[in-house]
């Protein structure tokens, strides 16, 4: 195409954008430039600020500082509509579409062509939708219901929807996460088509092979800060990984004298028809075992199977040397394995229930006799753990819903500790909480391990994994990609195994 990036000005640029949430600086003066007909890859770990950038560009978040420049002019996107009218459109990780509507209706929802009396001009809508679909080479009939389409076709509909608003800037947030190999190839072709049409594309992905395949330029963020930008041709995987993770130690993790004891839990050959395959590891007393991987690597799915929420198709576990079969969460609790889920809002506390009843709920079989609960035992147990976690409430009888978020979290943790487990699985224990609370959670994990509890920590944050784990299992696409400890445990090796980069500096 004879494109000379040095001469063209960016279509859309972020200049010194800052965005702060309570307790977190999500974006700290970042810069990002998108050029017509070029694909810019935005690279960064979870929490680097990628999603915040997408939301800022599409008018969902308002930046606290800095400028958004459209063709060099400072603009504001107070609403999502304003961004759309300016030609900025995003195709999201999880596409937001409507099952019961037709493909054409999905594409034009909110900006359908109008006929007389302001009614929707259905023939025109259908025709235009079909044109867009044909234009991107999608063999989809605009008249069918969305629910009759497969996941890949839905993605194409989402892309068609993005294009229906005369887009100049197309943001693709992990577009290949749910696609098969063949569908990914088709997506690449589509990206090439969009490029040829002169659209500026922001491509967000964790997969390096993809980035090297499709992107022209890269920009790296780390912890909400701009780290660097450049041409893909001038860089290597090794350099990008270094930029992504190379950090000064900016957070202090508790000192731990690792005194790992006997084997507590041994898992062998755990498999599930669709979610994970051949997971095996051992866990020792007093150990913190990290589970690292990209979002969707199958870590949570495996943990849920381990505690009996879903059934594995194959595999065995031994606990303290004895073979155990876990068919339900109740089995897991009585065996001494508990799971603190990631979504503590939805899967954690029962808000209408009093504090003490929340805490004793999984321990009730132990606390009751012949199906009758014993209030005095319940209160004693609840009091013990609320004091230990320094949870202050007017009364243990008050509903959990009346507590602050932090105290609700304490109730959830107290609930699981009260079962006196041997193994505690913490899924993303510090996701979405501020730095101060994070440190408290880390402190507490170290304490639990020191008391001889075995901890499995599922985390997508590299510093947390490095700072807390004695050993780390990296999962990728439902399998164990690596087990790392000691000197092998570095940010680079973690990212390499999680992203599936096989040889050092392969693309260099």
């Amino acid at each position, binding site marked *: 195409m004879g494109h000379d990036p040095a001469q063209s000005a960016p279509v859309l640029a972020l200049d010194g954008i800052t965005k702060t949430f309570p307790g977190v600086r999500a974006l700290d003066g970042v810069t990002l430039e998108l050029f017509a007909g070029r694909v810019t890859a935005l690279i960064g770990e979870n929490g680097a600020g990628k999603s915040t950038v997408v939301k800022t560009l599409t008018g969902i978040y308002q930046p606290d500082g800095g400028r958004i420049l459209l063709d060099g002019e400072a603009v504001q996107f107070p609403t999502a509509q304003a961004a759309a009218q300016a030609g900025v459109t995003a195709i999201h990780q999880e596409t937001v579409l409507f099952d019961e509507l037709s493909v054409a209706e999905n594409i034009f929802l909110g900006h359908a062509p109008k006929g007389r009396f302001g009614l929707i001009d259905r023939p025109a809508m259908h025709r235009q939708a079909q044109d867009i679909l044909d234009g991107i080479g999608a063999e989809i009939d605009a008249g069918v219901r969305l629910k009759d389409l497969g996941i890949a076709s839905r993605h194409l509909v989402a892309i068609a929807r993005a294009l229906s608003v005369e887009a100049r800037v197309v943001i693709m947030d992990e577009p290949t996460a749910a696609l098969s190999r063949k569908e990914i190839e088709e997506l690449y072709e589509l990206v090439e088509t969009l490029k040829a049409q002169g659209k500026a594309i922001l491509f967000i992905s964790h997969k390096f092979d993809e980035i090297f395949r499709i992107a022209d330029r890269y920009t790296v963020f780390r912890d909400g800060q701009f780290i660097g930008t450049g041409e893909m041709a001038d860089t290597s995987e090794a350099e990008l990984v270094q930029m992504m993770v190379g950090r000064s130690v900016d957070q202090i993790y508790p000192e731990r004298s690792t005194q790992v004891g006997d084997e507590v839990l041994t898992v062998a050959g755990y498999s599930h028809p669709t979610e994970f395959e051949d997971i095996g590891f051992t866990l020792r007393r007093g150990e913190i075992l990290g589970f690292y991987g990209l979002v969707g690597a199958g870590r949570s799915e495996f943990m849920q199977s381990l505690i009996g929420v879903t059934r594995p198709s194959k595999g065995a576990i031994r606990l303290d040397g004895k073979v155990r079969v876990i068919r339900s969460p*109740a089995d897991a609790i009585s065996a001494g394995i508990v799971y603190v889920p990631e979504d503590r809002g939805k899967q954690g506390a*029962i808000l209408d229930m009093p504090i003490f009843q929340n805490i004793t709920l999984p321990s009730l079989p132990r606390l009751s006799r012949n199906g*009758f609960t014993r209030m005095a035992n319940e209160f004693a147990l609840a009091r013990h753990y609320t004091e230990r976690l320094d949870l202050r409430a007017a009364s243990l009888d008050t509903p959990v819903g009346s507590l602050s978020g932090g105290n609700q979290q304490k109730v959830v943790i107290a609930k699981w500790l009260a079962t006196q487990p041997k193994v505690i699985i913490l899924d993303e224990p510090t996701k979405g909480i501020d730095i101060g609370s994070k440190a408290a959670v880390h402190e507490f994990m170290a304490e639990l391990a020191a008391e001889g509890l075995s901890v499995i920590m599922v985390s997508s944050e590299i510093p947390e994994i490095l700072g807390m784990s004695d050993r780390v299992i990296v999962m990728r696409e439902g399998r164990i990609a690596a087990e790392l400890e000691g000197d092998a445990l570095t940010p680079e090796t973690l990212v390499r195994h999680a992203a599936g980069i096989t040889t050092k500096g392969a693309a260099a």
Partner: protein
Amino acid sequence: MSVLNSREAILVGAILVLLGIVASRFPGFVTPTNLVAVFTDTAPLIILALGQMVVILTRSIDLSVAANLALTGMVCALINVSFPGVPIGVLVLLALALGATMGAINGFLVWKLAIPPIVVTLGTMTIFRGIIFLLTDGSWVNSHQMSAAFKAFPRETVLGLPVLGWIAVIVTLILGLVMGRTTLGRAFFAVGGNPHAAVYTGINVGRTQFLAFVISGMLAGLTGYLWVARYAVAYVDIAGGFELDVVAACVIGGVAIAGGVATVSGAVLGALFLGIIKNALPVIDVSPFWQLAISGAAIIIAVAFNARTGRSKGRVILKSAEHTQ
């Protein structure tokens, strides 16, 4: 912890105001004899509301209770006609078992086939009524065909209160024990409050809902015999539409229709409130239209009140408000 929390205190207040208004027009209504009669008349509603309360608490609904009542009542009546010698105790056990079986069918469909409860019980409601028709060809079982003992049991008076009233009292006490002091009761609250969280704490959500339907069905079956014996008649349409009164009693009693919140005392008071309205308004010459309108208004006011209290305890964001709750 007070025995009556604020919502129940308000209901008690509303009932007293209602009684006061009626008494000012017709003092005879508040004599002990009449109040006992009103309570006894409301007993079936109380028993059914308690069963319904458990079901609604677990995020379900049982619309088949009145049909279950009618079918069980008819079966009891037919047995009595054919085998007058069967003792009442056996009949009561049979009514409990038959009702529980119908509840189990509902519960099984909800649990194992994951059909929405409203659909399941709408279907079984019609099926149960249809079975009565098949059993009887639409004919009635009348008073003269029933044995004296069969008809006398719910009316027999013990310590000034008919057996029917006593049964409502006993069911209330048992449900109070189950809901407040057993692991099963706790499971009902947990499943209704947050089924996702309940799963992780080792509670089988489907099985818990199943048991709620069994309890509701069992109580409906018990009420079936009592109803047929008290009114001394059984036919296809007895207690037609009564399931809506039962749901209304729960709603007035503060049972959250979305599940998770309910009290035994609330359900009983809700049933009593409706029962008093139904008994008192005709006495003071309120037209049938106004009776319905007042019942309906009570339901809407109760729901609006629930929604308001539900909102106010939502989120405490202000640090300063954290410890004031």
